[in-house]
């Protein structure tokens, strides 16, 4: 089997992420009393785990340089493509809309907001069907959660 050397960007990025997380957790934990092995303080366990995570990050990162078999390369691209940000942004925004709307204008409008904003993430939005499913879901969630399960929600803005 012929082997080719190619940098695995996924492993490189994942390793870097783990390294950063590990160091960050360890550094913050240094502010808490460490204690001794017998009587561990609140900082002991997180410092140790943070350092372990940082080391694992290095191992994962170094794995990016290993040789990939042809089969592995065929199975999936090792390079990261540029992420499409539209779904990530709009889905996040729609959930945040809910967070803002639920206490100020109530469940019905919050639900409608989630449907409207999240639907924008889809490449061909059809406004009629979005309005329809927004209305259906808003009334369904009010009936199921506010009246059926009696969860304490503000339902309407009034």
């Amino acid at each position: 089997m012929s082997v080719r050397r190619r940098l695995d960007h996924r492993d490189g990025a994942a390793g870097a992420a783990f390294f950063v997380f590990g160091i960050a957790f360890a550094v913050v934990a240094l502010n808490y009393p460490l204690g001794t092995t017998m009587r561990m303080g609140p900082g002991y366990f997180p410092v140790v785990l943070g350092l372990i995570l940082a080391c694992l990050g290095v191992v994962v990162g170094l794995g990016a340089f290993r040789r990939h078999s042809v089969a592995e390369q065929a199975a999936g691209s090792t390079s990261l493509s540029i992420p499409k940000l539209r779904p990530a942004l709009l889905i996040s925004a729609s959930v945040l809309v809910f967070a803002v709307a639920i206490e100020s204008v109530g469940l019905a409008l919050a639900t409608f907001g989630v449907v409207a904003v999240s639907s924008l993430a889809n490449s061909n939005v059809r406004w009629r069907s979005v309005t329809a499913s927004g209305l259906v879901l808003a009334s369904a969630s009010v009936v199921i959660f506010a009246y059926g399960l009696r969860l304490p929600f503000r339902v309407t803005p009034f």
Partner: protein
Amino acid sequence: MELFSQLGHGFEAALTLSNLGYCLLGVTLGTLVGVLPGLGPVATIAMLLPATYGQPPLSALIMLAGIYYGAQYGGSTSAILVNLPGESSSVVTCLDGHAMARKGRAGAALGIAALGSFFAGTVATLLIAALAEPLSNLALKFGPAEYFSLMVLGLVAAVVLANGSLTKAVAMTVLGLLLGLIGTDVNSGTERYSFGIPELSDGFGFVVVSMGLFGIAEIIHNLEKGVERNVFATSVGGIWPTRADFKAAWKPVLRGTFLGSLLGVLPGGGAILSSFAAYTIEKKLAKDPSRFGQGAIEGVAAPESANNAGAQTSFIPLLTLGIPPNAVMALMVGAMMIHGIVPGPQVMTEKPELFWGLIASMWIGNLLLVLLNMPLIGIWIRLLRVPYHVLYPAILVFCCIGIYSVNQSTIEVAFAVGFGLLGWMFIKLHCEPAPLLLGFVLGPLMEENLRRALLLAHGNPTVFVTRGLSLALLLIALALIVILVLPSVRKTREVAFHED
């Protein structure tokens, strides 16, 4: 036989009208999320956790458990008809199940999957009932050192059985452990990593983390890559398998059940690995392995029995030891906590009705699934035609409502967005989120038991290897690692997980 009288009491508790209703609701919802790709049992159970506040504890657990094993049934339906695994444990079912469907034998494939699953579920239920008592008695002898070692074993197994890179899985587990430590330290009262945010003094909520990682992240990922599906259902054919089908399938069902039951008990194991292993074994044993992938009924019967058996027996570590072996069981811990039940060996003695009622409900649920699945196949097919762009806003709405209703906290909804983006990043980097969730649940428990064990041993770390039970658990963990590092096993593992 004490066992049967206890099971009898369990059936009494589970067969009340309302509990039957909850069981039916659970398995129906489970089938639904199993059929629909893009929404798994983890996200569904997380969504419904808050809704179980008002229910009696037994009804809540019956419903949530039903969602889990119901999803195993539903997953096979979309695997066979659409060639898309609705649930990750149905990945291998796609191979031969869909090939059978193309030959016009979708009905037989669905039928054998349902009947095999039912058989496996029955055996696994009996196994849980039989093993519960001895294991609980053993667990009562556990001290902090044993608990710590057990959790090490659990995490090691979770890593070994995770798919993809090992080092990444270990790192995800450690990250999960660290995230679990956020909040007030029980021993000293120090707030860790809360940065003065009052909502963080109790740490991140379980629902917030799981909903973000499994719900929101999945939606973003699906939209980014674009989801398309093709429903293949021109003619389903007869549901009842022929005599020849039964003849070919009964042995694979038995082997699959056995394998699934075994792997399900292992922490971190459960449905996914057992279905892969069962498929591999059948292919090895077959006289003519070339039939596999072309619509061999064994290739449907064995993995479907295995994943259902594995799903059921993964309740064993939770119910007897109080340790969740996978992400769904971790959610069950959350559900029990909501109702003030501390999972562990004492549940069996203190709440026998709850314990045996839940076990009995699993068998009832499996029966309901067969009754539900065989005639209602047409409805599930229609559901498969619901396009994703209609489906995902609905999933998001339920996620939002689920997170918010836990604590009536808007900031937790915002935290979930953070975990959603984190989860999306992990998907892109090929890091599996399940070990993280397991670490997140076990983190605080592990630290507490480690600290307590060392305190009791006057700081002597050898306590973990001088106590017999603890040593045994650590040795099993070590053995798992050693086996995995062996080149031949490594290769098989890569092949087995290649389909993903």
